[in-house]
């Protein structure tokens, strides 16, 4: 796919929609688009991965393996969201496995190219990292809410009394 088409796709994705024109151009130039059939493992927890992925369509799941429980699905991600931050920020050592839950289409950006762009052009770096930080902070908040286990049947033991309220 030629970069102008890719650029158009990036403009529509929530992760990259806010990026300035030049940054979008550079990101498009460093990216390709890829179809991923359902069930494909994109990267594995503990393994290395060279790419940052932006989901254009479909759904990916992040899983972590827990002895005795197997692969535990932590989060599913959809269109407009970013997967594979470790490739960019953590030298490619992945903290979870990513699997396509359904047939998906992703924008693939080579992490090393992005790093080079960041180093060479601080402006590019600022804008890309700003989006990374925003995406990760949202994911952190979502994880905290998950951690709170808000929908647990009874947060604390209920004493025997008559005034309960459930409306």
């Amino acid at each position, binding site marked *: 796919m030629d970069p102008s088409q890719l650029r158009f796709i990036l403009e529509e994705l929530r992760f990259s929609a806010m990026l300035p024109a030049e940054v979008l151009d550079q990101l498009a130039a460093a990216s390709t688009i890829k179809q991923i059939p359902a069930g494909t493992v994109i990267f594995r927890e503990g393994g290395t991965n060279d790419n940052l992925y932006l989901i254009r369509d479909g759904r990916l799941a992040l899983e972590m393996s827990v002895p005795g429980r197997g692969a535990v699905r932590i989060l599913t991600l959809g269109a407009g969201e970013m997967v594979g931050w470790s490739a960019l920020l953590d030298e490619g050592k992945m903290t979870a496995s990513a699997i396509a839950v359904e047939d998906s289409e992703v924008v693939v950006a080579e992490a090393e190219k992005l790093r080079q762009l960041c180093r060479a052009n601080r402006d590019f770096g600022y804008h890309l990292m700003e989006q990374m930080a925003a995406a990760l902070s949202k994911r952190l908040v979502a994880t905290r809410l998950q951690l709170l286990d808000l929908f647990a049947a009874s947060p*604390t033991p*209920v*004493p025997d*009394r008559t*005034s*309960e309220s459930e409306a």
Partner: protein
Amino acid sequence: MTTSTAVKSKERFLSKEAFAQLFTVLRDHGYTVIGPTIDQEAIVYDRIHSVDDLPLGWTDEQAPGSYRLKPRDDEALFGYVVGPHSWKRFLFPPEATIAEANKTDAGWQFEGTTDDPPKFAFLGVRACELAAMRVQDRVFLSGAYVDPIYQRRRSRSLVIAVNCTQAASTCFCTSMRTGPQCTSGYDLVLTELASGFVIDAATAEGADILDSLETTVALIETQQEARAARQQAVQQIERRMDTTDIRDLLLSNLEHPRWSHVAERCLSCTNCTMVCPTCFCSSVKEVSDLSGEHVERQRHWDSCFNFDFSYMNGGNVRDNTRSRYRQWLTHKLSSWIDQFGTSGCVGCGRCITWCPVGIDLTEEVAAIRGDVP
């Protein structure tokens, strides 16, 4: 006050001797008289039968966290200010059956309250207490739902107000613009003098009772003497609370450090809410007979200072004293205005007097306002 029509003011003089007849007249009109009497070293409101039950020659000395009865050097019958009781205990009883359930062949059947109180005559109602009744009228009678127990009791009651001729150190009714002079909300109003009372009626029922008493024309000098006696109460009031924009002041200071400060002293004992003449929080408990087939729902006074008052889903929303004191004070002085169009405080000072550690809400408000260091 009763529901009878208003009448024009016409002050009369009632001698101390003739005052004793009031009890007979009230009885003849079918009233059960509730008035001040001494019990457990305090002047409380209870059923009284004659002048002899009144606290003749006694007064109360009040300060933050302190209440003492002291003999007077005269024979005043109403020579005190206010005690731990308020009239709310007769209009909104500390315990009342609000509903009943009976198990029948057709399953559970439900009844409302069967409360059938006597006609009360409240004798010795102070101006701040008239204001408190108006406040509770708003709470229990003016919303979309009316409390049947309060309504029944309130509409049957005769209110005989007695103007204050002295004030306690804890009084601040002038700040709340509720007293000390009684201006409305009564059937009869008295001002006590050494020789007797200046008495006036505000309703037809009050006038009817007044006509049954042996009174004489209130001379100009007597009326002046009564005015002076009432003025004396005004002059004795030292405590002040600045109520300027108080609604916004408190609601915009919900995280003020003063709440933690007062929480260090507050025992969360509920005394202030029990003695407050306007506090209306309650809970209901199930009281079942041995068979379990007859259940009464008993409402009792509750308090926002009780730990489990805000219980929800296995936890208490207000789980510390800071949040509970803040709830009480912001409700009383601030959100009450949103809810009922009036402050919940009438300036009677009971919460100051009866607080075991002497917390003074006027001081707390001043601190939040930034008036004190």
